[in-house]
């Protein structure tokens, strides 16, 4: 009970205008620095997943025979979402380590750093995904359907889930410096263990439940259903995502509580 009370107390203490403004400012700064002096600038966030989409859309139908209607839309939806998830998992273990000097010297809420990293990646994801979607509709590869208006609801849940996980990763990484490498391996294995470039229908039915509980798939599935299949995610899929959000928030809060006290000495 105390734990839940503390959780809400800590959460409410962050509901401050200047807390979010600071997150936005730091994300903006990183964004502008990241693509400064590069010729294509922010377009790179679009190019990277798009090349992946092009490669898989050429190769996959040749090596695996699976019937997916409108495979390009399917790929774009899952790969763009996946790249947001994977980049968050690989980047945020370093959020506090990279800002060690500021953390040791300034009075600032430490959660701002992982949160500004996730916000930046989320912003990139939304913008690039939106551009791709508009392009798909304009090229008549997919048709516009009002069901996409439901998308923000699911995107917010995914954002909260990853924001929570990023806090746990950022606060535990100073204690376990390998976390970054562990996440890189986890991400590359998960890419093939999650129905991202192939549809779940190619998995034998008796094994499918294993995939249904894959947290990455829980996040990607509703987005794919909305954008690719133009259907409203069913109750169970939505419930899974909500439960994932709740559990990852609570578990991350537990890790944060344990790690936050002494992490500064490990930076």
């Amino acid at each position, binding site marked *: 009970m105390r734990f839940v009370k503390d959780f809400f107390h800590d959460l409410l203490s962050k509901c401050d205008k*200047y807390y979010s*403004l*600071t997150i936005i*400012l*730091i994300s903006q*700064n990183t964004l*502008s*620095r990241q693509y*400064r002096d590069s010729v294509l600038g922010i377009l790179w966030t679009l190019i990277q997943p798009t090349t992946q989409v092009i490669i898989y859309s050429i190769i996959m139908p040749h090596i695996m025979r699976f019937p997916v209607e409108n495979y390009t839309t399917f790929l774009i939806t899952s790969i763009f979402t996946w790249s947001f998830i994977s980049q968050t998992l690989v980047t945020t273990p370093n959020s506090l380590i990279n*800002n060690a*000097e*500021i*953390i*040791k*010297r*300034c*009075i*600032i*809420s430490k959660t701002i750093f992982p949160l500004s990293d996730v916000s930046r990646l989320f912003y990139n994801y939304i913008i690039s995904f939106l551009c791709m979607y508009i392009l798909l509709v304009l090229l008549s590869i997919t048709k516009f359907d009002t069901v996409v208006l439901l998308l923000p609801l699911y995107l917010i849940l995914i954002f909260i889930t990853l924001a929570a996980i990023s806090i746990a990763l950022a606060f535990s990484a100073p204690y376990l*410096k390998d976390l970054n490498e562990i996440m890189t391996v986890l991400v590359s294995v998960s890419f093939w263990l999650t129905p991202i470039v192939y549809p779940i229908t190619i998995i034998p039915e008796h094994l499918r439940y294993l995939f249904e509980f894959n947290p990455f798939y829980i996040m990607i599935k509703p987005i794919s259903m909305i954008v690719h299949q133009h259907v409203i995610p069913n109750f169970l899929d939505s419930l899974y995502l909500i439960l994932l959000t709740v559990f990852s928030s609570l578990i991350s809060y537990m890790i944060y509580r344990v790690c936050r*006290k*002494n992490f*500064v*000495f*490990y930076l």
Partner: protein
Amino acid sequence: MTLAQIKLQNVYVNGIDTHARAGTLRQWLLLNKTIKAKTIPILRNVSLEAKPGDKIGIIGRNGSGKSSVLKVISANYPIAKGHRLVHGTIAPLIEMGAGFDHEQTGIKNIKLSFAYRGRLKDYSSELEQKIIEFSELGEKIYLPLKTYSSGMISRLAFSSAVFQDPDIMLLDEVLAAGDAGFISKSRSVLRKKLDAASIAIIVSHATDDIQEICNRFILMDQGSIIMEGSAKEVSSKYKKDILKIK
């Protein structure tokens, strides 16, 4: 408004010696190092009380724990044992220039430094103008920091840090850099800010620098408070017992 107050009671701070701990699997399995980190005492049994009007100078050698006391007050360091009670807004001038992004322009860095100090609330374009004027950087404020000389960077760092009116001011040997004119200007503004603050704590290597400003003097060595006394007493004990100067 509550009165500014600092109360540290038997505070112990333990740092972690990350080198003594097995950082890799090889060190753990083959070199017999423990996974559990070894702690190193940073502060031992420090008790310090400050009430409005106190301007405390803390003297000591490098590594005596004086900056750590400031970090405990500003809650950057967690305490292992003891109690910490702090009332009032704090401005730790220990963070001058922290988080400056050398790729960004001076003006953007002013705002960033406010964000990193959790002071975005106080930020306004008038304040920004005041900071630019004070730093005497003129048009150069629109250039990226990487084109600045180190003197210009510290001028900007000082200017963007000094314009605040906290209850408690923490100073870590900040005495501004730059040319003679700028130094005297910044000393006088710093002095005004210190006088205006309810409580000020200044860390220094010698009493001479802070004698005029402070009204209480504390000597620290090896993470403990050795004595409190007048500037003269503290200075002579520091020179005799710690620096071993005859």
